[in-house]
């Protein structure tokens, strides 16, 4: 009986959804509402209004700046939740069972990763810094930095990674994105305009453009490095095991 009701409800919802899809405007049609008002404005005036030739960066940082600030805060809150539940790793004490097992990653893997990680981080920095003219930006570059550090940790173990990236180095960086965004936002208020305004009034055009460029750069770099370090810290918190207090120090 219950099954019949569930099936009936699902079929009903399915019919309604299919009916709704039939009502939708055809995909990719040039007469659709999103292509009449918003997209032409972004494409035609994005560069002069937002100061980034990559339209996506213009939308993310300028037209939808509040959304991006919320996203950055969400990532930071995720890290706070993970750290609140799982706690930080302890320097010199935290290991993984991989580290104490005595089986190491092979020489091939370690050498490959040793050569690959700098190249990957270089690529990530390129993506972060060129976010305003080519595809990419803070989030993408940050994810790549995080992935490269995770790769390093998987091959070389947690103690080596935490020695390279100690806690006192990571804690200031984790909040850097939110702080950069808020600093850029309040700069506008200091100049007497709205929160998150990039073009400051009362300056020459060149000075205003330069300040806008610097602000966007700071935000991109902040999102990038903070994102990468937040991924790293979440991974460290999840992977750590303080079991070596019971065992001899060297495997």
């Amino acid at each position, binding site marked *: 009986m219950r099954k019949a009701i569930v099936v009936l409800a699902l079929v009903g919802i399915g019919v309604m959804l299919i009916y709704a899809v039939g009502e939708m405007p055809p995909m990719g049609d040039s007469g659709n509402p999103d292509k009449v008002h918003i997209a032409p404005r972004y494409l035609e005036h994005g560069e002069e209004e937002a100061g980034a030739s990559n339209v996506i960066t213009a939308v993310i940082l300028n037209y939808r700046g509040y959304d991006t600030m919320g996203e950055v805060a969400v990532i930071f809150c995720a890290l706070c939740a993970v750290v609140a539940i799982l706690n930080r790793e302890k320097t010199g004490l935290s290991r993984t069972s991989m580290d104490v097992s005595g089986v190491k990653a092979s020489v091939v893997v370690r050498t490959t990763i040793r050569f690959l990680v700098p190249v990957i981080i270089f690529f990530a920095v390129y993506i972060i810094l060129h976010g305003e003219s080519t595809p990419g930006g803070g989030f993408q570059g940050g994810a*790549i930095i995080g*992935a490269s550090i995770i790769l390093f940790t998987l091959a070389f173990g947690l103690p080596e990674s935490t020695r390279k990236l100690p806690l006192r180095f990571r804690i200031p960086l984790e909040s850097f994105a939110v702080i950069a965004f808020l600093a850029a936002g309040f700069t506008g208020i200091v100049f007497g305009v709205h929160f998150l305004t990039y073009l400051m009034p009362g300056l020459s055009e060149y000075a205003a453009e330069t300040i806008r460029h610097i602000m966007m750069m700071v935000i991109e770099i902040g999102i990038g490095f903070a994102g990468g370090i937040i991924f790293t810290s979440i*991974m460290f918190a*999840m*992977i750590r095991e303080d079991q070596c207090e019971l065992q001899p120090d060297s495997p």
Partner: protein
Amino acid sequence: MDWTLNLLLLMLLLATAISVIRIKDLLAAAVVFSAYSLVMAILWTQLRAPDLALTEAAVGAGVTTVLFIITIYRTVRKED
């Protein structure tokens, strides 16, 4: 050419998505999910969204797979 490639990728996407739900071995499911993300990343580039493709490849195929595997290692590998 473009059309056949997209059809192939979409079919692969569907196959990986269904296998992720069906597979009872969670480690295998995590690996298949990583493959799903990779196919999705290629599809994003096909849809002219390189920004999303970069994010999908780094986060979807890279970071979340590692986090899933750590979680599986901490809990149980088999689904009931």
